[in-house]
């Protein structure tokens, strides 16, 4: 039996926050009003004394918990392997930084921490005893273009199984289940003067597995506006998509890692008034999770590629999730 709690990452309000329209309190308030039972905080985005948590910030977090009824449940860690001027961080150094993140997550009362695959499988393995010490479960985010059992993720799965640690696992980001083109990029391309037929043509080639350079050339030959390049880059990059027929295979992969998931990212890029995410198959995903033994937060995560703000969309996303899960 699953036990799905619904949360939101304050990252949803990243545009409002960056523009000074929302301060930290307003982000928490909005998440609460949208119906989140808890929130994820992206540490590098909203912790004032990052990577440490000051007593002052902790006090604010507690005040807001009293005021709006919700607190931090997930700590979004970044793994900044390229932060040094002349070389990548070593495993020793990445591990040390991640332990600082564990301390901060623990101080905030987060039981789950999202990490990224810049933290190598070897460093991830060495993290296990520290994650246990702080009692914070660390999940490697499975982010598009990775899939639950893509070769890179399989290395982490091996580590999780090898250590047997209940404190290592995954945070799948539903963007990895995309089975249709990303809507905001489509909108932006149209606005930039790209014709719909050329976008359709690009999507068809992507479905068919045509190489990006070949696709680019064919589009240029067909007279597409060069502004299509950004959308094309996305189709082969972080918002790539598979044909709908790939979904059963993806769910099979999902099944294999589900026992090791303690948080999920309900990624969304766009939600029209009918509350349908055009690229991510929520109607299939949510019933699938509901039937599973998943116990944890489904953190909705809006990626604001249109720079229009996430307030309205986040409300819709939580409504949509509730509707599907309760049906």
């Amino acid at each position, binding site marked *: 039996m699953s036990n799905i709690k619904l949360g939101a990452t304050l990252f949803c309000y*990243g545009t409002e*926050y*960056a*523009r*000074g329209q929302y301060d930290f309190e307003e982000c928490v308030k909005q998440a609460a009003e949208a119906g989140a039972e808890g929130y994820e905080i992206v540490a590098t985005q909203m912790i004032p004394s*990052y990577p440490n948590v000051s007593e002052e910030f902790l006090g604010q977090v507690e005040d807001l918990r009293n005021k709006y009824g919700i607190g931090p449940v997930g700590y979004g860690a970044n793994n900044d392997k390229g*932060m*040094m*001027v002349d070389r990548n961080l070593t495993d020793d150094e990445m591990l040390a930084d991640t332990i600082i993140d564990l301390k901060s997550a623990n101080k905030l009362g987060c039981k789950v921490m999202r990490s990224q695959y810049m933290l190598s499988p070897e460093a991830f393995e060495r993290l296990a005893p520290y994650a246990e010490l702080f009692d914070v479960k660390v999940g490697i985010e499975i982010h598009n273009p990775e899939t639950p059992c893509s070769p890179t993720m399989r290395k982490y799965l091996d580590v999780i199984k090898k250590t047997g640690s209940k404190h290592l696992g995954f945070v799948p980001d539903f963007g990895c289940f995309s089975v249709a083109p990303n809507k905001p990029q489509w909108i932006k391309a149209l606005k930039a003067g790209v014709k719909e037929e050329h976008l359709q043509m690009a999507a068809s080639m992507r479905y068919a597995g045509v190489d990006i350079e070949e696709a680019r050339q064919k589009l240029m030959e067909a007279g597409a506006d060069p502004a299509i390049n950004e959308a094309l880059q996305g189709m082969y990059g972080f918002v790539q998509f598979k044909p709908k027929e790939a979904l059963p295979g993806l769910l099979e992969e999902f099944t294999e890692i589900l026992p090791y998931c303690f948080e999920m990212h309900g990624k969304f890029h766009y939600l029209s008034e009918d509350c349908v995410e055009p690229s991510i198959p929520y109607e299939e995903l949510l019933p699938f999770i509901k039937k599973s033994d998943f116990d944890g937060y489904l953190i909705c995560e809006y990626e604001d590629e249109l720079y229009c703000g996430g307030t309205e969309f986040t409300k819709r996303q939580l409504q949509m999730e509730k509707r599907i899960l309760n049906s």
Partner: protein
Amino acid sequence: MSFAMRMKLADEILRKESVKDLYINGEKNGFEFDVQLAYYRGHYLSTIDEIGVLLDGEQIPQEAVTFEINGKEMPLYKLPYAVTEFWSQVEPAKIRVLKKGGVEAGDHEIELKLMIRVPYMEIGPDHNFMPLDCGDKATVTFTE
């Protein structure tokens, strides 16, 4: 590397209304302005690959420019090494420029060149990370 990401979440990176004359011993001898980090999250200053200020297209000597966050006024040369100095995206940095006699009255173009490595987006081997262009320019009017 020809492509560089831009993420201008806020309208102004270089804040026009923050531009001011800088006084030394009671006399104009430079100018200062605030700049916000143009990304959705903060970064260690050590992710800065390039930084510099131009006035009307002319480069200001690096030693005459400082960068302040968290109450620390730092020379530019230190920034790419500052692995413990975290720049929050909602806390603008203050840039100060020494210039003998200050800026003449009238319109002037201030440009900040600022290139950052996005340190979790590895795009190739050998320390190759997504470049982020956080620069900006603005034309402002200085008064007598």
